[in-house]
């Protein structure tokens, strides 16, 4: 049995590289990169393109300012917050541990943009809630799943997991797939014996 054929490298002719929905594929040509470089020379870390998707990495402290700038600048107008999420980079790099990923979309210009910032455990990211009301639940979900603290969020509490969930943040890479222990519903701690097919309710 022979080795499988190696995976071919994606070619530039792939149909996905020319959609144009993310602006120019050359970072130098991209208006967002150019304007951020002018406005926030210190904050811009890098700009990368994969499959025509433009990703800008900024300093975490400048995230809110950059997004606000992207939203209000008349040439950019990324006015629609599509998504906020995070990636646990535990197995991919040393530090910082997480990437916070913000997907933006400009309704009038019909272009997307991805803004990223790295954040380590214990560090905070400025919340986007003062700019986008829609960031509320998305940031809560990030906090719930990764434990990333968003500074300035008005109501940072768990959203998908129960409020009394005390065992860390499940989308972290070091979180076991089946959890640390079986979840026991409060009030059902002792195994209830089944009597004649019905579940006996535990007493008060």
């Amino acid at each position, binding site marked *: 049995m022979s080795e499988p054929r190696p995976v071919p490298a994606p070619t530039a002719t792939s149909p996905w590289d020319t959609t144009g929905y993310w602006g120019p594929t050359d970072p130098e040509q991209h208006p967002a990169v150019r304007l951020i470089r002018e406005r926030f020379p210190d904050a811009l870390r890098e700009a990368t393109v994969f499959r025509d998707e433009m990703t800008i990495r900024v300093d975490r402290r400048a995230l809110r300012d950059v997004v606000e700038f992207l939203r209000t600048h008349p040439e950019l107008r990324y006015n629609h917050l*599509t998504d906020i999420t995070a990636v*646990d980079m535990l197995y991919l790099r040393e530090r910082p541990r997480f990437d916070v*990923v913000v997907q933006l979309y400009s*309704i009038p210009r019909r272009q997307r943009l991805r803004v990223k910032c790295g954040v380590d455990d214990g560090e905070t990211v400025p919340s986007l809630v003062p700019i986008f009301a*829609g960031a509320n639940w998305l940031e809560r979900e990030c906090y719930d799943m990764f434990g990333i603290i968003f500074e300035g969020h008005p109501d940072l509490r768990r959203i998908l997991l129960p409020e009394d969930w005390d065992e860390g943040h499940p989308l972290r890479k070091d979180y076991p797939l089946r959890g640390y222990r079986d979840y026991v519903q409060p009030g059902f701690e002792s195994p209830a014996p089944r009597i004649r097919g019905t579940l006996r309710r535990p007493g008060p």
Partner: protein
Amino acid sequence: MIDFSQSTPVILSEVRQLTPTRRELVLNMGPQHPSTHGVLRIRLTLEGETVIACDPVIGYLHRGVEKLGESHRYAQFVPWTDRTDYVAAPSNNLGYVLAVEKLCGIQAPERAQYWRMIMAELTRLASHLVWLGTHALDIGALSVSLYTFRDRELILDIFEKFCGARLTTNMMEIGGFSREIPPELPEMVREFCRYFPKAIQQYEDLLTENPIWLARTKGVGIIEPDVAINYGLTGACLRGSGVNYDVRKAMPYLLYDRVEFDVPLGTHGDVYDRYLVRIEEMRQSIRIIEQCLEQVPTDGPLMAYESQYVIPPHKNVMTTAEDMQRHFIWVIKGFSPPKGEVYHAVEHSKGELGYYIVSDGSPIPYRLRIRSPDFVNLQSLPYMAQGAMLADIVALIGTIDIVLGSVDR
């Protein structure tokens, strides 16, 4: 002229703790409640019947689909997408499959793309029918729900003919379709397209001019366009407010740039407008399906067979050693897309459904994020519920069109 795209700035007032005064009544609506469309729970603070505060509590159907995605191979995850928005499974499949194809840099053949469009639009119809039925039922119109579910059966029959399953279809495959289209399917779809406009007319006869329906929906749950954008709404919730954002038009995927259709926009942004918009969307979907049926080639490949990322054709597996090996590896080990990250969105029946995939070059996604539309749309419920009556809450939940499997993932 206002600069509409730069919506009004958000000024945060202080957070109100949900401790009721004595005049107020806290009502826990859900998670087991007939009209919260599943296991949504809403903590309502009422004064009389007027809603003072509204705090949706979600997560009762959280199954950790994203975490599961990080432990399944790419092709194995497709059935999981069915389970997120279970009333519109093929659209979920489509979003995920397109994201993986983008990550791999492959594209399905033209014929498969047309059939994907047909199936996606049929899914939109099925999902809108479920929405219309439950929405009308919430407001008290009993019969509409039975009519819509009757017609949804026809769509599910088409799905069953196409892939054997009705609800969780697992229909799309990475690279196209590996099985031939059943020969009688086009006629079935055509028959449905001939029938369905009459059904829409029937629903409209019951609701559109009904004075009680108007009283219950007009002027209720208004979202201004700037607020809608600020909340990140998509789908009919955004278009009901008059903002033209439809992923099919704005950034066409598949072959949506080859078909003609209009994007309906509301003019008042209330529950009634979102109802009108969705009704019109159903008509436009029929238009798209009819055009697709005209344009789709009758034969041709359905799968990007030449690629490494797709399952080899069944016939070749049986006859050639090389394809048998490929098949074996594909099934046992999966395939490894290049390192990178992609975000791909499709216009789901509820809004923009996006899949954000980070690949580290292994056969398993490093991170798989589902941007579900109703999760984001549901955030606008407290805004709409402000000062509404208790009975409006069910209309508002209905108008957002949530499926808790998709909200909680």
